[in-house]
């Protein structure tokens, strides 16, 4: 039964416009602050950035106003804020210092434009996301193919010790960013058909009179076994891509729990994953390096101080010394509560600060207060995704929306957990914020899917032509 006291459907497009303009203003404010603090003058290219980035975001808003008018009003402003903060930080790191060899805000802006074009294309052409339900196994094959692509010799590239890139000559791509979306589509379709058997068939384990655990039947654990094997063998052992592995397995567990509401899946899954990690520790050297740089980050030979520079036993020659992690921690400690102000810190001490560690740059310059805003924005984005899952009627859409939300949430956790040394350092990126075309594009693709699903979920049901209640209304 539909909730009879449901609120009247509202579009709230004007609220979206106001919030989007606010997000653009924040981006420009951040650039002004960085320019004033660093160089003592307003950024000379402020107007250009304002026009380009602001124009793009407002264009996206009007696109939504016409083509997805019932969608959630907060999705676009939150994405704009995160993307804008990322651009402002890159501008501060490169353009403001006059050194654009490592990357540039303008480059990121161009990538944003391309991502928004893809976003618009998906919102426009994918009118019914449920059509994706038709090809679950094709999606699974696609996801596996994309994940394995970097292993092909000649095509794959190893950057910073992780083999997760493919080179296309003019640019390099990270196919795992797209594989995860394909995987969520597959899992949604699969769970819809196999939900009951995964949820109900079970064997109970009892201790005395008390029920301890509902074990699934052996044959029903096959999908989990495949997923586990893939995450451990391919991603961790062959590709040294712990981040993607954690992300995919976490999303898988979350989705199977959403579909079946059985905690035994989570318990078995986590036990299998951590058991495998513990078993790998003595045998896989690059995995061991990762663990040591996490647990013993402050040991001089792991950090590689000058004294150990020529010691073959120390971590100086490997890509996995803990300098980045430790410098990032120092930077965030330096930031404290309110930070040094945009442009006031020294984020360049952290190697590769533009990728995962852009979070430590924010921590240094905006402090805990500013970083919490970023986390709130990401949390609100995830909350809206869950809300879309709740509001949708179809099981597939429910699974799909919650899967994407979990993906965003786990991605944030994996990155920020790694930077703050809660979990081992991995190679994922904060959605919308970090530099990199693949990550940005996949974030906007996920946003487009959420946007379309929320539009379909919030749209009021069409009215019957006849008022007799006998006419069935088929929505399209």
């Amino acid at each position, binding site marked *: 039964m539909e909730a009879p006291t449901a609120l*009247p459907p509202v579009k*709230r497009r004007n609220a979206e416009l106001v919030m989007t303009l606010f997000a653009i203003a924040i981006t420009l404010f951040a650039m002004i602050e960085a320019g004033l603090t660093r160089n003592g003058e307003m950024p000379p290219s402020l107007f250009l950035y304002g026009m380009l980035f602001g124009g793009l975001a407002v264009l996206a808003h009007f696109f939504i106003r016409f083509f997805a008018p019932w969608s959630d009003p907060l999705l676009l402003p939150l994405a704009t804020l995160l993307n804008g903060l990322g651009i402002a930080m890159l501008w501060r790191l490169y353009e403001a210092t006059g050194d654009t060899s490592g990357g540039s805000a303008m480059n990121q802006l161009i990538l944003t434009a391309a991502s928004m074009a893809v976003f618009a294309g998906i919102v426009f052409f994918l009118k019914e996301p449920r059509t994706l339900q038709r090809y679950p196994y094709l999606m699974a094959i696609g996801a596996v193919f994309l994940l394995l692509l970097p292993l092909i010799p000649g095509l794959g590239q190893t950057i910073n010790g992780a083999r997760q890139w493919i080179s296309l000559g003019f640019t390099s791509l990270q196919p795992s960013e797209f594989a995860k979306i394909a995987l969520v589509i597959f899992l949604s379709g699969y769970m819809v058909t196999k939900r009951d058997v995964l949820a109900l068939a079970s064997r109970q384990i009892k201790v005395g009179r008390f029920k301890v655990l509902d074990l699934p039947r052996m044959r029903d654990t096959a999908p989990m076994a495949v997923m586990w094997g893939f995450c451990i063998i391919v991603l961790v052992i062959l590709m040294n891509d712990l981040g993607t592995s954690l992300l995919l397995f976490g999303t898988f567990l979350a989705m199977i729990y959403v579909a079946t509401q059985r905690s035994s899946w989570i318990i078995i899954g986590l036990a299998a994953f951590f058991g495998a990690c513990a078993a790998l520790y003595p045998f896989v050297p690059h995995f061991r390096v990762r663990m040591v740089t996490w647990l013993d980050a402050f040991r001089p030979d792991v950090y590689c101080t000058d004294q150990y520079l020529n010691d073959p036993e120390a971590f100086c020659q490997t890509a996995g010394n803990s300098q980045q992690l430790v410098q990032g921690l120092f930077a965030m400690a330096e930031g404290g509560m309110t930070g040094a*102000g945009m442009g006031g810190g020294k984020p360049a001490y952290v190697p590769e600060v533009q990728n995962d560690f852009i979070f430590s740059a924010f921590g240094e310059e905006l402090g805990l207060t500013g970083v919490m*805003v970023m986390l709130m924005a990401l949390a*609100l984005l995830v909350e809206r995704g869950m809300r879309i899952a709740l509001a949708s009627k179809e099981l597939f859409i429910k699974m799909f929306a919650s899967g994407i939300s979990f993906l965003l949430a786990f991605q944030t956790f994996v990155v920020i957990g790694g930077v703050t040394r809660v979990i081992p350092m991995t190679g994922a990126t904060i959605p919308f914020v970090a530099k990199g075309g693949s990550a940005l594009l996949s974030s906007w693709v996920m946003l487009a899917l959420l946007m379309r699903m929320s539009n379909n979920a919030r749209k009021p049901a069409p009215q019957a032509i006849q008022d007799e*209640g006998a006419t069935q209304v088929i929505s399209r």
Partner: protein
Amino acid sequence: MSDLTLMLIKITFLGVLWLFVIMAVGVIRTDLLGPVKSKSGRSKRSAEPRRAPAPKAPRGRRNEPRALVVTKGPLTGTTLNLSSQPIVIGRAKDATLVINDDYASGRHARIFSDNGRWVVEDLGSTNGTYLGQQRLTRPQPITVGQPIRIGKTVLELRK
């Protein structure tokens, strides 16, 4: 730039960032509690699409019912907004108001609008629909506040 100015800019920027979060939460608030204090503005706008398909219905009478409220039974407190569509009450899954009552039939009764008057009709139920103390034998017009009893459930129209 003096340090004080930069300090002020820094604090302002953080304040603005949090203002964004607070505004975003404000937008979500409407999701949970409905639009605030804008009875004239928003409710008019959202009522428009519903009003459009039935332009013939004479509007503007003072005593016009707006909602169907359950006053007794397991669903007490449930409110259904009235539109031009008929409301089917019963145990069937596709009924507009599904009541889980052993004394109710699958499609028990129907409440519909006949040119602005609201009429209740028994759809051949086993245990009958009562308007006040009387069992319905034919469709009867109802007014605001008249109790309609179906099994253990009592409903009435409200303004």
